[in-house]
């Protein structure tokens, strides 16, 4: 495990927030939020990379098969 530093103000806000949730600690809440955000960003990046590299190739193939106008 690695320790991260966040502002006292944010910790206080999370402490208020977790009282209304099932999270038992500020650490658990922060880890969940970070993990959710990073996963989403990674997924979007992966999708963009996959389609970005392929889009032109797909277009080019479809054109040669008569599906798209020159």
């Amino acid at each position: 495990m690695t320790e991260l530093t966040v502002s006292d103000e944010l910790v206080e806000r999370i402490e208020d927030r977790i009282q209304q949730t099932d999270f038992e600690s500020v650490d658990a809440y922060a880890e969940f939020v970070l993990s959710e955000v990073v996963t989403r960003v990674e997924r979007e990046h992966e999708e963009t990379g996959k389609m970005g590299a392929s889009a032109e190739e797909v277009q080019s193939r479809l054109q040669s098969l008569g599906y798209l106008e020159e």
Partner: protein
Amino acid sequence: MTTSPPNVILLSADALRADHLSCYDYHRETTPVLDALATESYRFENAYSASSHTREAVPALLTGAYPDVAVNQSYHLATESVATTLAECGYVTAGFHSNPFVSRAYGFDQGFTHFDDDLHLGQHKLIALAQRALDKLRNRHYARAEEINERSLEWLDSVADEDSFFLWNHYMDTHGPYEPPGEYATLYADRTLSGRDAQALYQRAIDEPESITEDEQQLLLDLYDGEIRYNDAQIGTFLEVLRERDLLEDSLLIVTADHGDAFGEQGYYEHPRYLHSEITHVPLFVRPPGGDSETINAPVSTLDIVPTIEATVGLEDDANKRDGASLLGEHDPERHVFAQARGEDEASHLRRYAVRTDDGLCFCERNRETGEVTFTEGDRSLRSVVERHIEERVRIEQGDESAADDEVNDEIERRLSALGYTE
């Protein structure tokens, strides 16, 4: 002692219309290999695709579901395919083709342990660019059957003896532009075309069908038949290797096409979003493990392929779940076989439907914005049958949309709740 479930081999050809095969009474001997296969298979004289173009036809073929639920609005695979079902049963699964419409970009690798769509997705952009430039130079539009065979046979080498496999090869040779390779170029045609000229002629046939002369129409047909004969020979080579490796006799083998191809019969070429017989009547051979031979005249659908596979590998037949029925069971001569196609461009608000019986057919269009149904051709006596079918399809499609929305909402709710947004 337990025996492994049978291997399943599905071979499909793109844009191969049934009435150009010699065993379907064509005047040329285009398919000696498939003619021979018919002597040890069930050959379906009246098989129709669930649609008329790859983006709706292949999803139906692979899922056993009508295209309206098999793919979403963007033509991404939206229903579980037979590859997933078989993978869950312990099969090793592989697909080999080169049609971008059913590539990884649209989610068609789902359920396949090995999937080769001939695209260079995920590779370094420079390699992909170089490959594309080379393809253009060589006028290469897709991977030839020979390459598909090599790739799939190499994969078969990696399958352990004790594993059952599902293999799908989809061949593009019969798809335009028609430029049969080598000796096949002049097998039926009296002249050859350069790759560029073949592509220009094909494109003009699509864009300006009225400009195609009788001579050019005949040339397109001759070249198409040459492609069929080439593809047939390649399927022969592939089946021969399977036989040598003792992988054919006890397997379930299905050979079919995703849709047909038109040559001006209805005023258009290629396979636009209509449902005429030229573009929906497909060849269909089913060789059960051990082989058997029969010609079946009852109308059937490519939707029946997945139930046939499921029945053969011993999966419970859930008649309520499937739109089709096993091709190895009883064949109902009175059956109604339906097809559908989404309109595009100025017709994108339309969905076309067709029904076929052993001696009749009926076409109609439904305006998706107003719900209005217009009958365009065919038997009046079949109109009520189509109307009932459309009502059911619309109900299912709309039901699925709201079910999908519920799923998304549940997921959002769960996440919000976890973050403390809702009490």
